[in-house]
């Protein structure tokens, strides 16, 4: 694993979200560097996924803000922000139809048509060569998650948020997705933020980890520093 050395792509400043009386994300300031895989780890209910939803503004922060390439994200139109900060959720939520139409969805929102060659390239990259015409109804859980990843990558995001992408998968599919994510970071210099409650997974795939507990950032560093060997 490479460790973080790239420029800062995304930075949060005193980011917080309160729901009712409860601060589910509380005063979090952290940086994500280009080409790294940052893991957000912590127990269930600690606020990791809530923090992730603030990063592409699916939820509104109560305090603080996020800077994308040094620009306050409140100044970026939400569709453009979400194109640049992509997201893959725990459940893939594929749209009915074939895989190609799912990959075309994002670019089509901007009036662009994704060429067949790019669809083939993306599917090659996620380990599903020749799957473009397959109906999403006939895919396994692991394959669906790969399509979800390719669909997010089709938008050419600067950073991709992954919310527990393997938690609903069996061990075999899980290791396949982990290997794929790692390859995408190493070979293609993608920047990922991965939410996981699985400390072993964080040790295996992350360059850096941030430990979140009760909505607060407790510690950040290399997996060995934060999680131990």
């Amino acid at each position, binding site marked *: 694993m490479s460790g973080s050395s790239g420029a800062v792509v995304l930075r949060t400043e005193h980011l917080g979200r309160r729901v009712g009386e409860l601060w589910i994300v509380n005063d979090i300031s952290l940086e994500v560097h280009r080409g790294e895989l940052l893991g957000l780890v912590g127990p269930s209910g600690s606020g990791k996924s809530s923090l992730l939803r603030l990063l*592409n*503004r*699916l*939820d*509104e922060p109560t305090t603080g803000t996020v800077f994308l390439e040094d620009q306050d994200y*409140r100044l970026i139109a*939400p*569709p*453009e922000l*979400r*194109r640049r900060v*992509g*997201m893959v*959720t725990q*459940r893939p*939520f594929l*749209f009915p139809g074939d895989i190609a139409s799912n990959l075309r*969805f*994002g670019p089509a*929102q*901007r009036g662009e048509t994704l060429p067949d060659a790019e669809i083939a390239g993306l599917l090659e990259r996620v380990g599903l060569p020749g799957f473009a015409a397959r109906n999403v109804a006939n895919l396994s859980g692991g394959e669906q998650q790969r399509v979800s990843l390719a*669909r*997010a990558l089709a*938008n050419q995001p600067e950073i991709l948020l992954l919310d527990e992408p393997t938690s609903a998968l069996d061990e075999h599919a899980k290791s396949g997705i982990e290997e794929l994510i790692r390859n995408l970071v190493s070979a293609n210099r993608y920047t990922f933020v991965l939410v996981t409650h699985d400390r072993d997974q964080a040790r295996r795939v992350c360059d850096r980890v941030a430990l979140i507990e009760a909505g607060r950032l407790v510690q950040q560093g290399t997996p060995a520093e934060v999680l131990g060997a």
Partner: protein
Amino acid sequence: MLKSLFHSQIALGFAQAAIASVLALLVILLARRRNIHLESDTAVALLRGIVQIVVVGSVLVLLLKAPRWSSVFLLAGMIIAAGSISAKRAQNIPGARKVSTYSIAAGAGLVTAVMTWAGVIDTAITSLIPVGSMIIANAMNTNGLALNRFRSEVLAHAGEIETALALGAAPERTIASYTEASIHSSLIPAIDNLRSLGIVWIPGLMTGMLLSGADPLYAAIYQFVVIAMILASSGLTALLSTMMIRAYVFSPAEQLVLRENA
């Protein structure tokens, strides 16, 4: 038999109501023998029904003497009440009452105004109020059905909607199919009414016209006119309410705010 006993029409009406109530109470006694207890509910409903309808009848007596322009205020009052009632079907959607009232006002109001202007609905208060209230009541039902279905669809598909938002889709694009399903399902009763007109049911208005001696063919055609007006106003109301409710389902920053756990 009753007519020979009562010389006043009001007294005759109360006697007829008493006999109908006795029949209903007999059914309650039959139900009681099977350990189904409906006594208190039915007694209250019967009492409430007779009081309400006598009050409405008394108001109608006053209305017959009221000037024509007063029907505008009465219809406006009905629209406000209809907005409030049908908004309850859209639980948890903020702004549902406002959206419902505006949509019913626009849908039912426009159709009633155009048809009155065209001379299809007579401006006499005895014509405008009953026909207008039918149009408003049906618009209210359609609006309630549309918002209720829309709410269920959005809550059930929050994941799909947020996935589309996360891929850069505009809010209206993410809910387009759910909006369409809501409008379609809300109009099923109005469309079915039109389809079954004269075959499955002969509506009350036509019956009333026949009883009051109108030409049966004209009564039948006029009934079609009313049901078609109901379809037009209901359709317009559902289109408007599902369009306006969007502003309350998404925040200005294009976040889905209508969520089960939000």
